[in-house]
């Protein structure tokens, strides 16, 4: 099952999330923005959902915001104390198990996202709803360019250090192919400001989002210093650099 051809290293992804679990609350600002939005969207439906699944739940803060008869949380990392541990693209649920499936901040580094969406649709009861938000699009775009330039300058070779990210058209297409009805994919742009590259990397680690790519290469000290300098060069007068973050939100239903 876990072949070398996969984009993300499943074991590594688990380890990074496990390490982040104890202090996750200190780094959850992006997750919380997604949680607030998803909770509001669920409330806006005016419906009550009996059985709720929070997928890629981290500490379960999204599921906790949604009133249901029974809430199940799934995370790839046991340290978050989910109801059960599973990968988002290998779900262990029978068909027609949940009325609502939500996910915040986890679907960006799933190996088989098309497969995950199909499994989500199957796990929903007829008429059930799916809402997911995750980082995508042009997030960290300048940082990706800086990494390539710094790698190239130091070694003449470039590797992938930031995962490729799906765009909103691609996400909409996946929902369609996943067999959902009324699929909608939206994208929102945020700017997070950092006093330096090290602070940004610390946040990513705190979120459990350090590099989980299967093909990751060690980042040389001189390359890191070059990227930090490029990052600082783009700072505003107050010394902080704008980092773009885009969040894709998917909303879809299973046919009733």
């Amino acid at each position: 099952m876990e072949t070398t051809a996969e984009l993300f290293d499943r074991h590594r992804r688990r380890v990074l999330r496990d390490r982040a679990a104890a202090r996750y609350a200190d780094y959850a600002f992006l997750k919380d923005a997604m949680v607030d939005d998803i909770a509001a969207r669920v409330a806006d439906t005016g419906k009550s959902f009996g059985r709720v699944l929070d997928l890629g739940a981290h500490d379960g803060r999204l599921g906790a915001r949604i009133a249901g008869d029974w809430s199940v949380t799934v995370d790839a990392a046991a340290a978050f104390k989910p109801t059960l541990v599973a990968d988002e693209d290998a779900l262990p649920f029978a068909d027609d198990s949940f009325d609502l499936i939500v996910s915040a901040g986890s679907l960006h580094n799933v190996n088989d996202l098309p497969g995950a969406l199909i499994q989500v649709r199957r796990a929903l009861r007829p008429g059930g709803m799916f809402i997911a938000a995750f980082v995508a699009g042009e997030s960290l775009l300048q940082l990706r360019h800086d990494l390539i330039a710094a790698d190239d300058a130091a070694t003449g070779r470039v590797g992938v250090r930031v995962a490729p990210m799906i765009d909103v058209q691609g996400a909409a297409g996946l929902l369609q192919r996943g067999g959902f009805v009324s699929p909608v994919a939206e994208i929102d742009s945020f700017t997070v400001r950092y006093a330096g590259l090290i602070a940004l990397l610390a946040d990513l680690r705190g979120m459990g989002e350090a590099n989980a790519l299967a093909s990751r290469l060690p980042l040389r000290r001189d390359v890191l210093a070059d990227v930090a300098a490029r990052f600082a060069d783009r700072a505003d007068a107050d010394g902080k650099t704008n980092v773009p973050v885009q969040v894709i939100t998917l909303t879809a239903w299973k046919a009733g």
Partner: protein
Amino acid sequence: MSEHPPELDPRLVEILVCPLTRTPLRYDRVAQELVSDSAKLAYPVRDGIPIMLISEAREITD
């Protein structure tokens, strides 16, 4: 010293399937395992948390 392991919620056991074969699982309370007879895999339940990963499952040999 030995504590009784926490019992899994029966509602959960009812909806769980093997992620490999998508067939129902048998809950072995003593071994704290969820057994997939069709895949011949036993998924561990650690501290009351089912670990539904094929990479963590025990292969069952007859």
